[in-house]
């Protein structure tokens, strides 16, 4: 028997084996819709036994109740016309099991035309697991979208073609795109043209290596302005898919740019800028500081303030720092020492700043060498001018001073003559003689004081500050002024406070000021109509602790509109006057850190007030 006849002989057996061993459920119905076969898989899937369903109408057993009418209609149509829309097509339908439970089924129905009548074979597969997985995936994706769309960052995804093909809502809103716009790399159009090369090349290199990348670039915001974003991309699969997020860093970039400008201007400022830490060490130094001090930046940053000036020591620094913190002593002058050992004077402004508990003493220093030189020159000129003015004043006073000097000399000559006369007697009266000798001595001292006062004012000497008792200084000056006062019948009221603190001043210059003021007072008083001409000199310590010398006359006064002009150079009301006395006096007062002011009442005298601080500021560094 050949194989084929054997196969034919056993065909029905083979058929049954093929049907029963199929993985899919196979249900065969006849023209009437009655089940003629129901394989093992169908038994497992639907829960029916083959013997129970054979000859039963399929529609009532496994078709979902909602679809039974549609099934009947469709089956009727196939029977009549031989055509059906569902035949040979893959369908997905719900089906029911014996216990009434539903499941998702995939189904293909074929028609087999046979002699006794056509049969319909249905291949059914339970796809509920697949459906569940699909559903889970859809849910997971929806969750991701939801998360991504609601996250406060811009998120993108790229596919294995290395193109970004998905953007979250935040990203789309930021740029003002619709999602469909972004496909095919349209998003690159939003990148700033100057940054595009950088963006594409960085991204390409990263993708080739399969590594992460981080980019900062400008992207066009929906309002039309470019914004800076920080874009971090990471590979999410080995096949070249990336996910990334962007953060708007425009504010930070702007702050950074501003900071760069600030840093540049600080680095390149002509002013020496040093930031000092609480221990006195330098935290920052600018270029001008390096240049002025002759160190490199790294050298300076390992140094402390004590290394460049002797004005501060590690011992004195805490107290100085506190004064800066409390803003009590923010402006000062000191000498800085260069790397080569030379020094230069600087004017310092210091500020205090604390950031997160860290202390910064920000100091700005200006080299004032030139200013000091100019000031020194100016001081020399002023001193020279003051000397010239003293000579002129002495010249004016010469006649009365010569007269004043001749008084004691005349007396000395007379006493001496009388003593010789008495000595010629046989019994000279020694008591008388002693009295005259004493008088001679007194007159010599009187003459000596005048000469001394005169000599000091005329002598040219470099200005020196010595500690003086102002009361004594005034006494010395009055010796020289007595003749003029007396001659003009002016009463001098001397109410000098002997308790005055000692002052460190240039005595000659202070004497000059007092001589000037009293001689002005004499001039103002001399021609006044007062019956009693008076000049009052008074000293006191004012509320600020300054020593005050008031010189007041009851002369003709100065009208209010001329008060300040009296201090202008070449301004004079005196015939033959130079108008230099008061300007010089004022500049002397100021160089001692004091001041000279006028307080005048029209027609009833003038008061000049000279104040000198106890602690001398002014020219001293």
């Amino acid at each position: 028997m050949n194989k084929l006849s054997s196969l034919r002989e056993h065909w029905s057996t083979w058929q049954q084996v093929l049907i029963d061993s199929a993985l899919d459920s196979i249900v065969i119905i006849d023209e009437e819709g009655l089940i003629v076969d129901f394989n093992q898989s169908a038994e497992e899937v639907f829960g029916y036994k083959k013997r129970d369903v054979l000859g039963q109408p399929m529609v009532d057993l496994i078709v979902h109740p909602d679809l039974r009418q549609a099934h009947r209609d469709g089956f009727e149509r196939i029977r009549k016309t031989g055509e059906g829309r569902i035949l040979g097509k893959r369908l997905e339908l719900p089906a029911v099991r014996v216990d009434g439970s539903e499941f998702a089924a995939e189904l293909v129905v074929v028609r087999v035309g046979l002699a006794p009548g056509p049969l319909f074979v249905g291949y059914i597969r339970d796809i509920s697991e697949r459906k569940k997985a699909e559903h889970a995936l859809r849910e997971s994706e929806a969750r991701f979208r939801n998360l991504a769309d609601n996250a406060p960052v811009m998120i993108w995804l790229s596919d294995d073609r290395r193109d970004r093909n998905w953007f979250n809502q935040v990203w789309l809103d930021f740029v003002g795109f619709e999602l469909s716009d972004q496909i095919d790399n349209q998003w690159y159009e939003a990148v700033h043209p100057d940054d595009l090369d950088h963006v594409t090349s960085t991204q390409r290199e990263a993708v080739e290596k399969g590594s992460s990348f981080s980019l900062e670039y400008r992207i066009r915001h929906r309002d039309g302005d470019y914004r800076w974003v920080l874009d971090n991309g990471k590979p999410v699969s080995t096949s070249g898919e990336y996910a990334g997020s962007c953060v708007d860093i425009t504010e930070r970039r702007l702050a950074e740019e501003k900071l760069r400008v600030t840093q540049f201007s600080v680095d390149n400022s002509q002013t020496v800028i040093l930031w000092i830490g609480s221990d006195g060490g330098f935290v920052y130094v600018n270029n001008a500081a390096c240049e002025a001090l002759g160190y490199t930046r790294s050298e300076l940053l390992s140094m402390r303030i004590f290394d460049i000036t002797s004005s501060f020591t590690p011992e004195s620094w805490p107290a100085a720092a506190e004064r800066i913190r409390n803003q009590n002593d923010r402006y000062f002058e000191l000498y800085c020492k260069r790397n080569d050992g030379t020094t230069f004077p600087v004017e310092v402004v210091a500020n205090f700043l604390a950031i997160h508990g860290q202390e910064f003493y920000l100091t700005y220093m200006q080299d004032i060498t030139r200013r000091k030189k100019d000031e020194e020159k100016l001081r020399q000129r002023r001193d020279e001018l003051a000397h010239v003015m003293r000579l002129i004043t002495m010249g004016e006073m010469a006649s009365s001073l010569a007269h004043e000097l001749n008084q004691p000399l005349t007396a000395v000559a007379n006493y001496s003559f009388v003593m010789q006369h008495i000595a010629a007697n046989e019994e000279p009266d020694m008591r008388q003689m002693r009295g005259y000798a004493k008088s001679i001595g007194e007159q010599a001292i009187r003459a000596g004081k005048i000469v001394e006062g005169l000599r000091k004012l005329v002598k040219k000497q470099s200005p020196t500050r010595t500690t003086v008792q102002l009361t004594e200084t005034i006494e010395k000056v009055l010796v020289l002024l007595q003749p003029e006062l007396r001659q003009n019948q002016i009463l001098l009221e001397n109410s000098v406070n002997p308790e005055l603190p000692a002052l460190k001043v240039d005595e000659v210059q202070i004497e000059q000021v007092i001589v000037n003021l009293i001689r002005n007072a004499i001039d103002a008083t001399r021609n006044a109509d007062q019956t009693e001409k008076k000049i009052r000199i008074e000293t006191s310590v004012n509320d600020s602790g300054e020593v005050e010398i008031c010189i007041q006359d009851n002369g003709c006064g100065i009208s209010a509109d001329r008060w300040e002009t009296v201090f202008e150079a070449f301004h004079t009301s005196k015939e033959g006057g130079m108008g230099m006395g008061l300007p010089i006096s004022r500049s002397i007062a100021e160089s001692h850190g004091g001041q000279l002011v006028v307080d005048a009442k029209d027609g009833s005298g003038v008061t000049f007030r000279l104040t000198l601080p106890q602690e001398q500021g002014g020219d001293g560094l």
Partner: protein
Amino acid sequence: MSDPLIGVIEDDDAVRGSIVLLLENNGFRVQAYESAELFLTDSEHTVFEGLVLDVRLPGMNGLDLLEQITDRSVPTIVITGHEDRSSFAEVISEGKVHFLSKPFDPIDFLKVLTSAIAQ
């Protein structure tokens, strides 16, 4: 005959005192004044045989005083500085006025005064 009475007008205490001493030790009586004003109130009823007058006086000065003195025949020694003399030119020509500069030699002073009174 009593010693001649000399009027001394000088504001400086030391100078005035020493002149008084000088005159009293050389045979003169002296009446001394600190100022021209004080002298004038006294001169109404006092006859002086000679005057010693300082130019620089507080208030009325020597020149003003000379103009006030009506009797120009009284011999007067004006003690002055050289620079002051020109202003006295007028007065000099009219009266018996002699000049001495401080500090003067007491011998000269006594000589001038004695000879002026003797004339």
